[in-house]
């Protein structure tokens, strides 16, 4: 796969890191994500996914965050 190709945060594998390239969310979600450190250019790691299509655990800097798949699909990443 082309290493620069954009993909969805959902499609990362557990343990895989990437750079956030784009956040396509409404204002309320966008502000919340920004306050938690989700900003374009930041490195994000998918730590693990919950069973039964549950939420994702991601790590940005020193913060671990859980986020539902529907909201994670708003975040585009590119491989670092």
């Amino acid at each position, binding site marked *: 796969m082309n290493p620069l190709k954009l993909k969805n945060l959902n499609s990362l594998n557990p343990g895989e890191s990437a750079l956030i390239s784009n956040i396509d969310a409404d204002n309320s979600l966008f502000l919340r994500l920004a*306050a938690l450190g989700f900003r374009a250019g930041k490195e994000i790691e998918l730590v693990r996914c*919950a069973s039964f299509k*549950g939420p994702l655990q991601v790590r940005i800097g*020193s913060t671990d965050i859980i*986020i539902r798949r529907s909201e994670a699909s708003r975040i585009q990443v590119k491989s670092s």
Partner: protein
Amino acid sequence: MKRIALLGMPNTGKSTLFNRLSGSSARVGNWPGITVDLKSAKILIGGHIAELIDLPGLYDLQGYSDDEQVVRHFLSNNNLNLIIIVANSAQIDRQLSLAIQIRALSLPCMLLLNMSDEARKTGITIDAEAMSRKLGMPVVKISAKYGDHCPEALRTAAELLSKPVVHIDTKHIGDQLQKDLNIEAEMESILQGTVQMPIQLGNNLTSRIDSLLLHPWFGLPIFFTAMYVLFQFIFNVGKPFQDGIAWLLTLFRTNALEPLLLNTPAWLSGLLLDGLYNGIGTVAAFIPIIVLFFLIMTMVEDSGYLSRAAFLVDALMAKMGLDGRGFVMVLMGFGCNVPALMGTRVMRSKNMRLLTMLVIPLSLCSARLQVFLFMTATLFTANQAPLVLFTLYLVSFSTIFITALLFKNQYKNDEPFILELPPYRFPTARQIWLRGWQEVKYFIRRASKFITIGVVLVWALTHFPMNVAPASNGTLAGQIGEWFSIVLTPIGIDSQLAIALIFGFVAKEIVIGALAVIYGLQGDALMHLMAHKLDWVQGMSFMLFTLIYTPCLSTIITLKNEAKSWLFAWISILWSLTLAWGVSFIFYQSARLLGF
């Protein structure tokens, strides 16, 4: 009096700091136009008496969540002398944004870098003085949990308070709240040279614990085991305390109150003893359970496990419009609904919290279990009884699912579900006790009045008029039973059982005691009579109705207090009555149709 607001993002230890500064003098107050409880306390600070207010955690001053709106409303409608911003030192690289937003309001403010002990351990160094110069407000590194440098922070606050008051029009604040600031660039420039973060971050111990507790296969079994153990602990340890309180109250009643009221008219001693005194007893019975519940819940919450529980069970909960923390509270509701309802305060989205509060009263609590143990022993064989109990639990879970699915659009959660997983921490014993104590105080102050009124009311219904036997068909309760016979007969409930249900409104376990009074028999004799009078279809229908029909009095008062709305409490009562009748009707009529 000076007024100081504490403000910060969630999980920054803001409430821990509030508790440390206020001791146990905190009270919960109502503020105009604000629908959540705000804790406040009067504190002495450098010769000033100041009111310290703990504002809800928020991520962004311009955010859309319920809490963010509350804070905005508070800031633009109340005059403040000082804003103390609390930030988690380990996350200062992103939490600085809030300080920059607050600074723009031109109110006196200062920044506390909390959990500085934790940050130091992970290798983060912050130059507070340099940051203070760049940010243009005092910055103090503290640890609210252990009290490090808190006196220093208070001295700084006192200095800010003694400066001449600059009156800022709240209108100006309202306008400022709308403005866009170039926060990101500002943050970068302040962090530059003041904060050093190690390149490889991440708490190793936390990661290792997580890889077990959040394991794809072991995570859920560990969660359910942990919940089971905690549940058993709360309610098994609570039981002897409850029994002890009941024993003391009875002792006082028979040895002091009854002799004292010997010569008073029957109605008066009845009112005082069976009404008022029993009302106090009803409130007292909850005290051990509430303390234990919050001792355990504070540990689960402050350790960071509650957010992990949300991660584990969210897949199922999301479909019902609930979240994992709500699930934990519903599970605890199977012990007692009252503390479970109080525990929902951890959920910050109002609608999701209301939906959770609507389903909690449907969980088969231990009071109802007592009734069912008695009834199943009376009406079923030893082999059938466990199966019947299991069925009742299944019905309880089903009503929870159905209610959540039916109401999830009415109480639609519009906040994004994004939670922080803080590193695992041990709360201090002080934090745990303080919380248990505060919650009990809150319950007693808010609930005891209405609970006592309710108990007196039920006493009056079942004892007036005085010229007929108490709890007989001639009493007001009996008449109510008669009026409702048109709806109760189709579900197999006669007027005597209806009186027991009216008693059960006070507390469900009273149903058995009420039956004893109604039939004038106790123990085996009562069982014998009931087995003779009721067939199993009637008994089952009665149990189903008792399971669902209305939350008990204390639960209703707690619902009202937590939702701050009588309307919501009424919705809960009406819905559960409707659902109870529907379930009993379907069961009773189908059983009869099938020839049972």
